[in-house]
């Protein structure tokens, strides 16, 4: 077994090694966290946790993840199916509008819905005034609860499933459906026995992204008073002052994620979901009633996930916020934009490189599992990643400083506290997003295309540039978009690692919201959303022109 994998490692071509080194450097924080598992904890924190709160963390996390899984798949798959396969009024508009909720940070939507639905919010106040009720006279679902948290996260995380499933549905070939039709399957049966299974690997990628983000979320659950793993990690670290136990809790989280992802991979085992190109199915024209239903569904989703909170934020910005756009505001926007575009660009390029490493070294299991591990960082709360990144970089800085001291040079800290380190942390967090996306797209390109191109005299570089890249374009763009928006919203790592006098929109909005000045936080959040809109619209335009030329 071991000698076999060693042979696989030895047989890797030379150009793979820099990439492998890079993967390992991305894995250091994850390894740092995992290493805590084998470190003995001398404090009695664990017995305390087991006796008191651990069970609550586990059950709440379980319900949260399950709830969000149901939420994002049902919203994501339905909307993706409608947009990709059905022709109805407004379809073109919804195709991109359905991505919008992605730009809303989950904790912000939590704050806005609390403002709207809370006991003192406009809705309940209206009900009380109208029916002359007072506290306790009527039932109203509590927004600050586990159920509320599930709804909030489902509303902003479903676009992961939507984006990926839409591409998958849109590219399914017509011949399979015709075969299904001949076999006497009705439309519903064709969906469940052909479309859905074919799209499954892609949907699972989207789902696992949404769930990993759910696990890493801290702001929403903390505000709603729902005790889950992530809040437990910070309570243990900040409250009990036991950083080691906090790391150990994080590792447990990682192990569970690893297990679930492994399970999914195992269940697919050798099955490869390569599709032969060919004709793509035409969209089904819906009847009038069906069109109304489709329109209603998509509108409600966008309304809840984007429009309603956006209106609330706009109201706060215009009516209540004190100083809205001061001189520093442009700088913040520029900083956010810069970080997000660099990270998105690098993430896409790295993912592409990793995807090729896998494709060209197949069936090498070593590279495949390395790349798989590289995406794990997404499940960890950003602060944990940040601390994990600090360690190797400061070690490196100290090493350089000491070496340089022999020559009488004082280097001080080079990487620590620089944006290089921050972007590195972003990549560790968000590589999973682009990696999953691009990997599945790469898997969908059948090896026969490569062979065909070769017989036509194309070299490898020609295959990459003229065959693969055009086929991958949609995935490259959409994964770039996802990383861009994720980086715009990113808060904990930015807070912990950024240089002096450097702020982003997310930092500004968080500091105000956390000080319970929601209205004053609104302008920064609105700007995050608007900046996030730019690539959404651009992407849509370029995808549209893409589908025209094909």
């Amino acid at each position, binding site marked *: 077994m071991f000698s076999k994998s060693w042979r696989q490692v030895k047989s890797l071509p030379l150009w793979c090694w820099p990439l492998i080194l890079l993967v390992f450097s991305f894995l250091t924080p994850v390894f740092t966290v995992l290493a805590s598992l084998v470190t003995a904890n001398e404090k009695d924190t664990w017995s*305390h946790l087991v*006796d*008191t709160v651990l069970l609550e963390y586990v059950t709440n996390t379980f319900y949260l993840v399950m709830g969000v899984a149901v939420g994002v798949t049902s919203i994501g798959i339905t909307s993706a199916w409608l947009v990709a396969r059905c022709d109805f009024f407004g379809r073109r508009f919804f195709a991109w509008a359905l991505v919008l909720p992605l730009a809303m940070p989950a904790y912000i939507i939590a704050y806005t819905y609390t403002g709207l639905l809370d*006991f*003192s919010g406009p809705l309940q106040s209206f009900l009380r005034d109208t029916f002359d009720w007072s*506290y306790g006279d009527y039932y109203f679902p509590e927004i*600050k*609860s586990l159920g509320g948290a599930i709804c909030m996260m489902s509303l902003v995380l479903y676009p992961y499933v939507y984006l990926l499933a839409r591409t998958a549905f849109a590219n399914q070939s017509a011949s399979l459906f015709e075969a299904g039709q001949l076999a006497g399957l009705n439309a519903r049966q064709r969906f469940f026995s052909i479309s859905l299974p074919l799209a499954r690997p892609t949907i699972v990628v989207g789902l696992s992204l949404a769930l990993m983000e759910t696990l890493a979320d801290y702001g929403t659950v*903390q*505000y709603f*008073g729902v*005790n889950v793993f992530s*809040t437990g990690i910070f309570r243990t*670290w*900040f*409250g*009990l*002052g036991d*950083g080691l136990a906090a790391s150990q809790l994080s590792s447990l989280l990682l192990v569970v994620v690893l297990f679930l992802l492994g399970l999914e991979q195992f269940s697919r085992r050798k099955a490869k979901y390569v599709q032969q190109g060919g004709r793509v199915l035409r969209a089904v024209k819906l009847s009038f009633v069906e069109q109304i239903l489709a329109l209603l569904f998509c509108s409600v989703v966008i309304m809840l996930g984007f429009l309603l909170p956006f209106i609330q934020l706009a109201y706060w910005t215009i*009516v*209540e916020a*004190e100083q809205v756009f001061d001189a520093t505001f442009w700088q913040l926007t520029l900083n956010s934009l*810069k970080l997000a*575009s*660099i990270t998105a*660009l*690098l993430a896409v390029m790295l993912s592409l490189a990793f995807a090729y490493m896998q494709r060209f070294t197949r069936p090498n299991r070593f590279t495949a599992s390395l790349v798989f591990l590289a995406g794990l960082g997404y499940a960890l709360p950003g*602060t944990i990643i940040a*601390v994990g990144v*600090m*360690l190797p970089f*400061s070690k490196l*800085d*100290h090493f350089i400083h000491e070496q340089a001291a022999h020559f009488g040079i004082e280097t*001080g*800290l080079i990487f*620590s*506290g*620089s*944006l*290089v380190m921050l*972007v590195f942390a972003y990549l560790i967090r968000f590589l999973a997003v682009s990696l999953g996306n691009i990997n599945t797209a790469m898997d969908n390109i059948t090896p026969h295309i490569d062979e065909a191109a070769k017989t036509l005299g194309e070299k490898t570089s020609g295959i990459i540039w003229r065959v693969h890249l055009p086929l991958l374009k949609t995935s490259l763009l959409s994964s770039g978009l996802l990383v861009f928006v994720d980086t715009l919203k990113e808060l*904990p790592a930015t*807070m*912990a*690692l*950024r*240089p*002096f*006098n*450097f*702020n982003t929109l997310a*930092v*500004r909005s968080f*500091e*105000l919201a956390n*000080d*319970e*000045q929601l*209205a004053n936080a609104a302008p920064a959040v609105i700007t995050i959303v608007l900046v996030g809109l730019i690539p959404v619209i651009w992407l849509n335009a370029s995808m549209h022109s893409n589908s025209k030329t094909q």
Partner: protein
Amino acid sequence: MLKPTTLIFALMFSLSSVITSASEVNIYSARKEMLIKPLLDQFTQATDIKVNLVTGKADALLARLLNEGKLTPADVFLTTDAGRLYRAKQAGMLQSIDSSYLKQHIPAYLRDIDSQWFGLSTRARPIMYSTERVKPESLSTYEALAQPEFKGKVCIRSSSNIYNQSLVASMLAADEPAKTSQFLQDFVKNFAQPPKGGDRDQIKAIANGICDVAIANTYYLAGMINGNNKDQQEAAAKVSVFWPNQAGRGTHVNISGAGIIKSSKNREAAVKLLEFLASAEAQSWYAQTNNEYPVRQGVAYSPLLESWGTFKADQINLSRLGELNAQAVKLMDKAGWR
């Protein structure tokens, strides 16, 4: 067309930023930018010393300090509670500052015994009550809120919040653990709803009749009164402040404070900054603009703070809060205070 590689290099180049200035001081601050920047700007204006600022979560910044070790560029560590300053001191990150000015103007209980950190403003955490349903005579101490007569009438935020942890730590410092533990068991039974939201949410809950009393920082009540939100203003108008434990140890207060990093290369400028923050001018900013209580005697309150009256503060040395924090969290876990 701009080549992607050119773009990347241009972007990468813009990532490197080097700070150089003759006279400057670097701060790691757990205090949010908008709550400290105005004062820092005043300091720069007065002294011509440039201030560089990173804000963040106290424990993450502390981890950053520890990792950077003796190479850290930070000169000052600023936090919003004594517990984190205590942790920084325990980790050996701070140095003693022998400043007669700071010692003269900051009361002993608001600074470290070894002069490694100093309180710069205080935040009081009293009881707030509904003026419609509660007679202030029925209130006395924090401990009394565990009495059966308050069953279902108390609102308070999660015990994950540092303010609540410090409050319970102050009780542990005043009484035996068994007594605090018993208090917590009974106190939790009196909650009107599971703890959630922030301090403002608890005040709103009183106004809406969900509960009659809450424990919250005056700072947030002031924010509601001074803000532009009409609902919050109306809610705040239905709530008043009661100073508990006046016959005993006094009302619980915590601080925002600062210490100077051991390896600081700008020690002199850092001391100047701390002294500036303790100056009458800066202290008056805390009291007038930020609605916090000054640490320095003889600084005029804002009319709002004035209207809540003066109170006796719990004068326990705040280092104790840091020492007892973990024990407080464990007891709250055991009592089921979420």
